[in-house]
């Protein structure tokens, strides 16, 4: 049973929609990505330089103390036993045992200190990385999130972080120790017997070739596993997020089929990576064991020929073990290393993604006393894709305090106007200004204080009703929150909930009805007290009584009775229910990204144009 993953997913409008820009598949991009992930690692480790130095010292201490053990055994046997047996002099043995105790103590402290430190540094690095990636995701534009999807964001911040954590949890000491022993053992061997060392060093080209092959093959394989797990997570999160539709439409078997396919794809990707290790680890072992056998035989002849003593041969053989064994451990650990490297590359791809809607380099402040709410579109053209323009050189002036309704068919560009004012996107040409300042020159904080958008999405976080309203102004008191709810007409239903304002709304507000969520969203926006309020189909799921309540509340909110501004708030209302439009001072009818009618609603109805037709249809629908 196989599922054609591509047919099922459908054709995406953009190629490589799943990746960040840095993750293009050409060779140059791979090199760039690797370099940027290395820079990222460097910048993560730099703040811990001193502790890392201490850590390396502890590791050296542990290593030296560990190496002393066998030598002390040798001393004890060679120098300790003879005086004890012959003269009952336990002095040397006592000295050796004291030295041994010291070495053991040093090794214990070194190991414990090292592990504690490496845990601390590792976790600090993870903490730093998590925050950086999280912040960067929040900085990236809506356009990026729309194509990258939430599932992938989750995958980057959970599964990829897990692979790095796994590396941090165990293995760093192996990595350093392995490098350390390889170098020191090579040195000792050369000192002990150059010909035998030369034979040993013959194994080097093989080791290098094997490692190089493995490194190349496995970095491809591990990159594939990171992408495969992301697909698993995306499907998991999306299908369980829409579980109502899944169950109501008996989608389960098909979902299971798809899940099995992506799950199996992940298993295959992992299998390939694991099999590479299954070749690499014994490969190292073969080289090591062959070298030992050759050294044993050749060394035997050298002893027979009288070139070296037996002790040297024994020492060389012991050291050879120390030479190859850490490499063996390394291959165990390579697994974690490669998957962490792949994860780090993915993350550095995210971090190097430039926000399409960047924070301004030079900022212009709004006039003192806060925003007045005067908006202007100056020859604004915009399209989500270059070949499909949505707005054509739109000129629009919304004086401070005006309530503008935007109507038009689906695809006319109504929501685009809203998104441009909320600066989810920047215009392709022209400029949107607030109080005469280009939105691109305002700091994010200032823009968001001035402009709030309410959409029909009404996303609620899990938590209480009060917390969700309080999101509009995190420092608001309970009194202010309740006041906002009252002003919107949401207080009655909230007070009637079993826990009142402290009722848990459940995951994504599932405890509330769609209409109730919309009321909470209104209260949240009201609490934020913006100079410009954008309502994008924000009343569509309200029933008539609630809509009336909101209507009445909007009149008060927009009139300025509640805001400090003398002329009230500016509002852009997008609605297909013309009841919401009735409160507008002015109506703009859009068609194909162009203004076709513009004027006060009464005047437009009288003029008998398109708005008049819409208005008549709406009147008819009410009867």
């Amino acid at each position, binding site marked *: 049973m196989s599922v054609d993953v591509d047919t099922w997913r459908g054709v995406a409008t953009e190629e490589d929609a799943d990746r960040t820009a840095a993750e293009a598949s050409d060779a140059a991009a791979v090199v760039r990505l690797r370099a940027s992930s290395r820079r990222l690692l460097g910048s993560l480790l730099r703040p811990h330089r001193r502790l890392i130095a201490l850590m390396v010292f502890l590791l050296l201490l542990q290593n030296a103390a560990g190496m002393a053990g066998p030598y002390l055994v040798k001393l004890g046997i060679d120098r300790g036993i003879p005086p004890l047996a012959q003269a009952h002099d336990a002095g040397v*043995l006592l000295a050796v045992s004291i030295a041994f105790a010291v070495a053991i103590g040093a*090794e214990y402290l070194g190991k414990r200190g090292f592990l504690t430190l490496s845990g601390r540094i590792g976790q600090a690095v993870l903490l730093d990385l998590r925050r950086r990636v999280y912040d960067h995701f929040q900085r990236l534009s809506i356009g990026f999130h729309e194509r990258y999807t939430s599932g992938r964001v989750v995958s980057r911040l959970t599964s990829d972080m897990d692979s790095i954590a796994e590396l941090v949890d165990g293995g760093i000491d192996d990595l350093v120790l392995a490098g350390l022993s390889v170098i020191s053992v090579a040195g000792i061997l050369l000192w002990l017997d150059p010909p035998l060392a030369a034979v040993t060093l013959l194994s080097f080209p093989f080791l290098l070739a094997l490692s190089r092959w493995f490194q190349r093959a496995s970095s491809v394989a591990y990159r594939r596993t990171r992408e495969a797990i992301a697909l698993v997570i995306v499907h998991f*999160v999306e299908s*369980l997020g829409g579980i109502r539709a899944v169950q109501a439409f008996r989608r389960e078997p098909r979902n*299971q089929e798809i899940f099995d396919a992506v799950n199996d794809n992940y298993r295959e990707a992992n299998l390939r990576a694991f099999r590479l290790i299954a070749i690499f680890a*014994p490969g190292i072992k073969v080289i090591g064991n062959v070298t030992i056998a050759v050294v044993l035989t050749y060394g035997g002849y050298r002893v027979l020929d009288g070139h070296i003593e037996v002790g040297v041969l024994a020492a060389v053989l012991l050291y050879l073990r120390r030479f190859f064994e850490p490499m063996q451990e390394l291959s165990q650990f390579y697994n974690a290393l490669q998957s962490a490297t792949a994860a780090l590359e993915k993350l550095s791809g995210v971090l190097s993604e430039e926000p399409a809607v960047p924070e301004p380099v030079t900022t212009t402040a709004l006039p003192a006393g806060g925003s007045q709410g005067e908006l202007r579109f100056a020859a604004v053209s915009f399209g989500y894709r270059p070949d499909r323009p949505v707005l054509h050189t739109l000129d629009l002036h919304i004086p401070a305090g005006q309530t503008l309704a935007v109507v038009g068919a*689906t695809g006319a560009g109504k929501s685009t106007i809203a998104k441009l004012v909320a600066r989810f996107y920047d215009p392709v040409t022209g400029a949107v200004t607030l109080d005469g300042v280009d939105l691109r020159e305002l700091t994010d904080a200032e823009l968001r204080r001035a402009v709030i958008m309410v959409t029909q999405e009404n996303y609620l976080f899990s938590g209480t009703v009060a917390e969700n309203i309080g*999101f509009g102004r995190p420092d608001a008191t309970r009194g202010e929150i309740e006041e906002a709810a009252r002003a919107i007409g949401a207080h009655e239903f909230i007070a009637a909930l079993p826990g009142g304002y402290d009722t848990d709304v459940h*995951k994504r507000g599932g405890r509330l009805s769609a209409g109730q969520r919309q009321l909470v969203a209104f209260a949240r926006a009201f609490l934020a007290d913006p100079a410009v309020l954008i309502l994008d189909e924000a009343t569509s799921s309200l029933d008539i009584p609630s809509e009336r309540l909101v209507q009445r509340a909007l009149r008060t909110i927009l009139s300025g009775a509640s805001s400090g501004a003398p002329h009230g708030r500016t509002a852009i209302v997008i609605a297909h229910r013309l009841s919401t439009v009735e409160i507008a001072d002015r109506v703009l009818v859009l068609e194909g990204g162009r203004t076709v009618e513009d004027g006060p609603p009464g005047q437009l109805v009288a003029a008998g144009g398109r708005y008049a037709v819409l208005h008549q249809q709406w009147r008819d629908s009410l009867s």
Partner: protein
Amino acid sequence: MPSPRYAAAHNLWRLRRYVLPYYGQMAWLLGAAAASTGASILVPLVVQRVVDGPVRRGDSSGLLLLGALALLLGLLEASMIFIRRWVQSSSALGMEAAIRRDIYAHLQRLPIAFHDRWQSGQLLSRATSDLGVIRRFLSFGLIFLVINVATFITVVALLLHLYWPLGVLVAVMSVPLFFASRSFTRRYIKASRQLQDEQGDLATLIEESALGVRLIKSFGRRAYMARRFAASTKQVHDTAVGKARLLARSWAQFDLVPNATLAAVLVAGATAVATGRLSLGGLVAFISLQVMLVWPIDALGWIIANAQEAMTAADRIYEVLDTEPSIVDKPGARAIGSAGSAGQLRFEGVQFAFPGTAELVLGRIDLEIRPGETVAIVGATGCGKTTLASLVPRLYDVTAGRITLDGHDIRDIELATLRRVVAVAFEEPTLFSMSVRENLTLGRADATDEEIAEALWVAQAEFVYDLPWSIATRVGEQGLSLSGGQRQRLALARAVLGKPRVLVLDDPLSALDVHTEALVEEALARVLRGTTALLVVHRPSTVALADRVALLQDGVIAAIGTHAELLATVPAYRAVLSQEAGARA
């Protein structure tokens, strides 16, 4: 009441059924691991022979042979490692995939009430991070637990055989090891469970911020969310650091014990040699054998940690797998088909409270919808209309009373067939990141192009044919973004696809503009003529589709009749549905 530790160990043990298909492979694995360990123990003995034999005798004849033997043993060891790793990669990954598959299948069977309660981040971390831990245990921890214990026993037995007083000394070291591992186990299991739970919470926060990114942006709450996230990651960080400290202490202890024993053996052995009770060669042999114990003991710390994590992970996984799906087929449930169903729907004394709450959302609903009839449910925001609609396809089960379809309690009907006969459209349309076609057909993969075309026509959603790749275009979160009205029309098309006998539509036209709404209503009216339908509505225009209207108020049906009747006689109905009444009020 079993202790939590026992429960965790028990849950890990329950995972053995996933190991079952791989018993043969596991035997291979263990055999290969034992053989490679054995070979590596033998190589030093060969070296001994070389030194004691040809080298000491000054005779090169046996040297090549012994060299060849060492080579052979070395190659044997490597090939055994190869076999172990090769086999283990497929078995461990196979088990991991099988468990993940079952978790997903189980989650799909669990009722909506479960998903309302559980954060998906917590579910996700169980299906990814926790499974990774278990995979590592099954592929390394378990094997080396067995091998290392076996090595330990063998070597200690050999040591006792060599010189029993020193052997006893070595055997005694298992006492501090036992205590060290016991206290380690006890603390570590707590720390690792805490960390796993906190990581689940973190995953939830991550998911919520990813889904709510528009909201966060439009309110400029980046800094606020960053603070919340920072607090949550700090929590994870602190727990992880505590866990690392615990690990550092225990691992250092596991390293200390064999080293201290070595020192004790050296002193005691040297004394024994000096007093002539042990030969020098004996001592050397003893010490080199004892050195073989260092790695198995050293690894014990890692293995215990790994086993503990696997236990808590198994615990967390079984928390999900042990939740019984409450909405399932009864034994002997009857299968129904659209053809055989008349479509008579009755609510008899239906009460409903959300699971775990006492407050009744629906107090007592009695309502009959005759075959082919369309009944609209009208009521104020939050009065339970959507809940009522969710009961028909059994997304929730009634708390008391019953709902019947053609006289049969819907709980006695096979779930899959019930949901085939009853189709729903929710007010909030869910689209998945996949092609339009898949989004429309969902569970009805056998739908023909004609059926799809017809459903799209009814919902006035033919705009999809104009998408860049027609109905093969990917929509949903990751695809082309559609407007609210477009999404809603797709969800409606999904519901009417294949002409279900019973339609449940929850305010399906709320996001449409007046013009489109009129067109959809016209087409929908034709579909509804022969279909039993329950309509949740907010607008007078949609009410026109219904034969009768029921007013839902305070959890009961307060009035029922035609739109005109209710408008004339019921003031509460006027308040909910009439624009003019409201304007006067």
